[in-house]
C-alpha cells in the first residue's frame, strides 16, 4: 500500500511539477502571476485528445502536438494580454491574464462542451508486479516523459545561451537589456517554453485521470501557486521538488484520510510556508511587488 501510493504520488507530482515550472519561470522573469496558465494546460490536454481522436496517432505524437499547440497559444497570450499592458501598474497584467483565462475557458466549453472526456484506450498497457505493487507501462511512460522533460528544461536553463539570457533577465531586466539581451524575445521564449510544458502536462494528466474537461485548468492554477510557493518563487529546481512533494501529499491524504480534505492540505501547507518560511523550502530571493 505505502509503496504503491509512493509511485502514484511520484507520477502525479512529476506532472504537477511541469505546470509549476512554467509558473515559476514566468514569475521569475516577469514578476507576474499568470492566471491563464491553467487554461493553457487545459487546452494542451484537448489538443492532444483531438489529435488522437482525429488522426488516430500515437500518444507520443499527440504529446508533441499538444506541446507545439500550447506553446503557440502561450506566445499569443503574451502578445495579446501582456506586451502592451503598462507594467507600472502592477495589477493590470494580472487582471488581463484573468481576462484571458475567462476567454480560454469559455472557448473550451464552446468548442468541446462541458463534459469530461478521456483518451481512447488504444495503448497496450502491460502490468508489471513487484510483490504487492502494481506498475503499468502507461504509468512508467508518464513518469519517464515528465522526468525527461524536466531534465531537458534544466539543461536548457543552465547550459544554453537562451537559458543564460533567461536567468539574466530574471535577475535584472534593465541591466540585461543594457548588456544587449533582447528582453522582449526572452519573455516570448519564456512563455513559449512554459506553455509547451503546460501542454505536455495536460496530456499526461489526461492519461492519468481520464477526465479532460474545460474546467480542469482552475484547480491546476491553485496547485501551481502552491508548488511555486513551496519551492520558492522563481526557483525552477524548487518547483520540480515541490511538485513531486505536493503530488505525494495529495495521494497520501486521499489514501489515508477523506478525499474532501485533499485540497485543505495543500492550502494548509501554503499558509504554513507563507508564515514560517516565505522564501520556500529551498530559499529564493524575495520579490518586492
Amino acid at each position, binding site marked *: 500500500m505505502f509503496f504503491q501510493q509512493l509511485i502514484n504520488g511520484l507520477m502525479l507530482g512529476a506532472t504537477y511539477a511541469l505546470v509549476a515550472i512554467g509558473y515559476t519561470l514566468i514569475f521569475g522573469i516577469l514578476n507576474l*502571476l499568470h492566471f491563464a496558465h491553467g487554461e493553457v494546460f487545459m487546452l494542451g490536454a484537448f489538443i492532444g485528445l483531438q489529435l488522437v481522436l482525429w488522426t488516430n496517432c500515437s500518444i507520443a505524437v499527440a504529446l508533441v502536438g499538444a506541446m507545439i499547440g500550447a506553446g503557440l497559444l502561450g506566445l499569443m497570450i503574451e502578445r495579446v494580454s501582456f506586451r502592451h499592458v503598462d507594467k507600472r501598474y502592477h495589477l*493590470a497584467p494580472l*487582471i488581463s491574464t484573468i*481576462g484571458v483565462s475567462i*476567454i480560454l475557458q*469559455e472557448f473550451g466549453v464552446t468548442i468541446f462542451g462541458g463534459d469530461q472526456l478521456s483518451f481512447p484506450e488504444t495503448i497496450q498497457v502491460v502490468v508489471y508486479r513487484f510483490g504487492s505493487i502494481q506498475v503499468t507501462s502507461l504509468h512508467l511512460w508518464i513518469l519517464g516523459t515528465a522526468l525527461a522533460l524536466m531534465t531537458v528544461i534544466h539543461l536548457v536553463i543552465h547550459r544554453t545561451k537562451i537559458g543564460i539570457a533567461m536567468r539574466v533577465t530574471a535577475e535584472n531586466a534593465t541591466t540585461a537589456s543594457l548588456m544587449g539581451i533582447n528582453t522582449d524575445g526572452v519573455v516570448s521564449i519564456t512563455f513559449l517554453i512554459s506553455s509547451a510544458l503546460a501542454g505536455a502536462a495536460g496530456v499526461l494528466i489526461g492519461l492519468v485521470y481520464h477526465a479532460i474537461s474545460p474546467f480542469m485548468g482552475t484547480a491546476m492554477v491553485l496547485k501551481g501557486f502552491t508548488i511555486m510557493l513551496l519551492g520558492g518563487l522563481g526557483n525552477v529546481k524548487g518547483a520540480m521538488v515541490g511538485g513531486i512533494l505536493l503530488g505525494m501529499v495529495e495521494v497520501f491524504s486521499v489514501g489515508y484520510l477523506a478525499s474532501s480534505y485533499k485540497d485543505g492540505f495543500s492550502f494548509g501547507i501554503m499558509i504554513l510556508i507563507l508564515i514560517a518560511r516565505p522564501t520556500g523550502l529551498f530559499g529564493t530571493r524575495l520579490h518586492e511587488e
Partner: protein
Amino acid sequence: MSGYTESIFIFMGINIIMALSLYLPCSAGQISLAQAGFMAIGAYTSSLLTRDYGVPFYPALVLGGLLAAMTGVLVGFPAIRIKGIYLLLLTLAFGEMVRVFFLNFTPAGGASGMGGMELKTNLVNVYAIVGVLILFFSRLRGSRMGRALESMSDDEVAAEATGVNIVRAKLVAFGVGAFMAGLGGGLYAHYALYIDSSKFGFLLAVEFFVFVVFGGIEVFWGAIVGSVLLTIIPEAVRFLKDFRMIFFGMTIVILMIVRPQGLLDKQLVDGIARHARRLYIFRGVS
C-alpha cells in the same frame, strides 16, 4: 419591475458591497483574495441562525458579519508581516480553507449544500446597506483613519515614521472589510435561498478583485462602477449567446491595455467633483 430585472439589481447591489469590502484593505495596500471566504462565513452563519435557531434576519445578518470580521482580524495578523504577492497567495489559501471547511461542515449540509432559508433580501435592504457604505467611504476619505490608510498605501515606512499605527490600521482594514463581506454573504444567502461551498471558491474572490481593479483601485467609486458595469455587461450581451463570456473577458483585457489604472482614478473623480461644484455655484448665483 420583473423578477429578472429585480434579481440583476439585487446581485448588482451585493456585488457592490463585496467590491467595497475588498476596496477597504486594498486602500491600505493590502490585496485580499479572501473576500469569498468571508462572504461564505457570513452566508453560512446567518443562514444557520435564521433557519435552525429562529433568530430574526437582521440580528443574524449582523452576527454573520461579526464572525466574518473576527476571522478577518485573525487573517490580518499574519498579513501584518506579509506583502504583495505573498499576501495575495496567503489570502487565497485562507479563502480556499474556508471553502474546504464548509464542504466538510455537516450541520450546514456539507457537500450537498444548504437550503431552507426564507426570502428576506430585497432591493430596499440591499441598497440601504450600499447607501450606508457609500456614506462611510466618503466620510472616511478625510478622516484620521482614512488618511492613515492612504499614507500606508503610498509608503508604509514613511507612514509608520509619521506616527501611523500600522498594525492597528491593517487589522481594522481587514476586520471591517471582512464585516462588509459577511453582510454581503448573509444578503446573498437570503436571496439565493440555497448555498453550497463550491460557490464561494477562489473564482468568486477573483471576480470581486476584477471588479475593483476594472473600476479603478484608487477610489472607492471605482469599486462601485466596476461592479455595476461587470454585472450588467454579461446580461446586456445575452444576444451573443455562447460568446458572451468571451466578450466579457475581452472587455477586461482591452481595458487593462487602454487604461491600466482602471476606469476611474483620483484625477478623474476630483475633476468630476470640481465640475459638479462649479455647476452648483453657477446655479446658486443665477
